[in-house]
């Protein structure tokens, strides 16, 4: 056991720090770290900032050099994310391209697809959204009904996606579509890339309970895309989509932990300033929140160690999402409790939320997206503990 980083890694950390110090100024610095994949606060500024990151080569850090990445080690990616969070730099806008589609193309795409799409992601010139969920395909993702039919040298797509984060800002969508309705449900799917700017695609914002609309419904009516824009083999899209979901658990968790730790410290400061921290029950709750966020860090250290040894996250890493989402939900409830009657008073008209209010409300999405709590527990029960699967419904 040793919690120190190597001299080489520390040198890399210094490089990240000095770049951030030089470039994170003015309106970029003023923005802070607010916003997120499902929160478009300061969108235009974040987009400009992301382009700067791309120019400097900080996007696609861990991608292989042959595809324009830096080929950075897992440790270096962790350090970059950690320093980025410490610097309170803007929330990233290219998550779906950099974090999901890029790695998917590198693993499953053709050489032409890689050459065509990876540079746009690396320079933040093309933004992507993820077309997986549908009204009848949430936790049961393989129940996708959106239909793609090959018509000459084009796919023709009809159907509907939902919960499509940032679709209204995106240039492209990667969508799981049904290409063989006769095959068993996991076996008739394909992973298809479509341009968003076309008459066959209609994006309707889905106003969520926070009052804003980062999610969308995406409707396909004879939408078209080139026949060669299927990733992996036709009807083998399930394997590709599962690969994509595997990339969701990347190297961002130290940064995320820091973000949560920062929020926890804000809560503690708030309690002190409001004179609430002398109350023994409040003290218990604050200590409990703090314990939770520290354990998140220790769990992260253990996962990193295993990742460094094996190259991929250990099965136990699946507890991480379950852990942080529920911890954050509790913290949001504590924030409301500490604010007391002020928790009801909004920051301004048009349902403008205070930070704690926003956190409290958004946390209800976190136990649902990227695999709900219940699905996570099934995965843990079956894949980590080896418990028998539920008999399939007839």
């Amino acid at each position, binding site marked *: 056991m040793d919690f120190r980083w190597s001299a080489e890694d520390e040198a890399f950390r210094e490089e990240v720090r000095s770049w951030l110090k030089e470039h994170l100024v003015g309106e970029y610095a003023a923005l802070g770290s607010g916003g997120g994949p499902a929160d478009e606060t300061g969108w235009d500024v974040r987009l400009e900032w992301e382009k700067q990151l791309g120019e400097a080569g900080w996007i696609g850090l861990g991608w292989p050099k042959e595809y324009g990445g830096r080929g950075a080690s897992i440790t270096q990616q962790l350090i970059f994310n950690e320093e980025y969070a410490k610097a309170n730099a803007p929330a990233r806008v290219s998550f779906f391209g950099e974090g999901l589609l890029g790695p998917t193309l590198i693993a499953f795409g053709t050489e032409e697809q890689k050459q065509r799409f990876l540079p746009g992601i690396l320079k933040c010139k093309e933004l992507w959204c993820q077309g997986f969920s549908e009204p009848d395909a949430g936790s049961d993702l393989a129940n996708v009904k959106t239909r793609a039919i090959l018509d000459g040298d084009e796919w023709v797509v009809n159907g509907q996606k939902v919960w499509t984060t940032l679709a209204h800002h995106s240039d492209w969508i990667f969508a799981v579509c049904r290409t063989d309705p006769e095959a068993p449900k996991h076996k008739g799917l394909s992973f298809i890339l479509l341009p968003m700017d076309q008459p066959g695609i209609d994006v309707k914002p889905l106003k969520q309970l926070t009052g804003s609309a980062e999610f969308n419904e995406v409707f396909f009516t004879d939408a078209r895309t080139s026949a060669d824009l299927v990733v992996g083999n036709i009807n083998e899209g399930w394997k590709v989509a599962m690969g994509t979901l595997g990339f969701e658990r990347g190297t961002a968790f130290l940064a995320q932990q820091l973000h949560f730790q920062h929020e926890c410290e804000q809560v503690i400061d708030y309690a002190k300033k409001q004179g609430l921290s002398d109350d023994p029950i409040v003290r218990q709750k*604050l200590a409990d929140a703090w314990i939770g966020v520290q354990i998140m860090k220790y769990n992260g*250290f253990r996962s990193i160690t295993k990742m460094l040894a094996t190259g991929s996250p250990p099965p136990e890493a699946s507890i991480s999402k379950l852990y942080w989402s529920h911890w954050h939900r509790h913290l949001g409830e504590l924030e409301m409790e500490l604010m007391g009657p002020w928790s009801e008073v909004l920051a301004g008209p048009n349902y403008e939320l205070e930070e704690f209010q926003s956190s409290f409300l958004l946390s209800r999405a976190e136990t649902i997206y990227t695999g709900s709590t219940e699905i996570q527990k099934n995965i843990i029960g079956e894949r980590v*503990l080896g*418990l028998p699967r539920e008999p399939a419904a007839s």
Partner: protein
Amino acid sequence: MNFAFSEEQEELRRTVRAFLEDKSSSAEVRRLMETEEGYDPAVWEQMGSQLGLQGLAIPEEYGGSGYSYVELIVVLEEMGRALLTAPYFSTVALAANAILHSGDDAAKKELLPGIASGETIATVAMTEDNGRWDAEGITATATKSGDGYTIDGHKMFVLDGHTANLIIVAAKTGDNISLFTVAGDAAGLTRTPLATMDQTRKQARLEFSATPAKLLGTEGEGWPVLSRVLDLAAVALAAEQVGGAQKCLDMSVDYAKVRVQFGRPIGSFQAIKHKCADMLLEVESAKSAAYYAGWAAAELNDELPTVASLAKAYCSDAYFHAAAENIQIHGGIGFTWEHDAHLYFKRAKSSQLLLGDPTYHRELLAQRIGI
């Protein structure tokens, strides 16, 4: 960045596990828990002379093998898993730590070799009838008498207090607290074993009446030493709890795979599967906390007091929850005396309250992080 045990530490784990599977089987635990002394002298002797477990983290100059606290928590985790019924926690986690951190070189030379070899069973007598784990709870007094001291008062809930040859007593000298060593057979010491709900960990009541005692460390400076010992012991206990919690999860998962109701293994029902997933999350998180605390204890760094309370609070609740769910998942059979589930459940409860309950440690933590 490396948060894993070394190959040597994993080897130590395998050795200790194999030894305990042999010497601390369910039948042995049950045999020993019915006895008043609560340990097998032959096994204790083997642990000391053959495996060197008592002296593992004692420096070589005092007869130990000089390993770190990280090795110690590996051993304690295995002991928790096997519900080892022996005075190891009291002797090593409490008494040896107290002597090691007393700053009393003469006492270290005199007392540690006996602990390391397994000859000495030792304990720390701190708590009294008030059940408190802080300095204010200590009311027994020590008075200077000739070259030494005499102690008056009582101690309660003393782990293995009736079998220890060496007792480290916390008593008041004026307004402050000092530590003393008292021989198990000292004059004026009356020791009464307690009948306890958790029969795998023995406790005693000690009455002192002008009992001769020898100062350990410096007069009036006992509390800072004791406070550090309580932190180190909390880390040790957290490791024990992790071992017990993992065993409860293993028992539950094994049973859920084979117990059939409604024509299918109960583990295929989400009601059971999700319970097990929750237990895994807590057991893994408890491991992270206990191991990290073990590292802080090995380094004796500034983080130790906070992570000790953190680990004690979290691992206590994780173990109790796992032990309670283990009974629930087993259903009726889990409520029988014959099944081991109750042994873990009772150990989990006694450990949760030992050294201060989770509420106490969360409060301590709040103070330690400046809330």
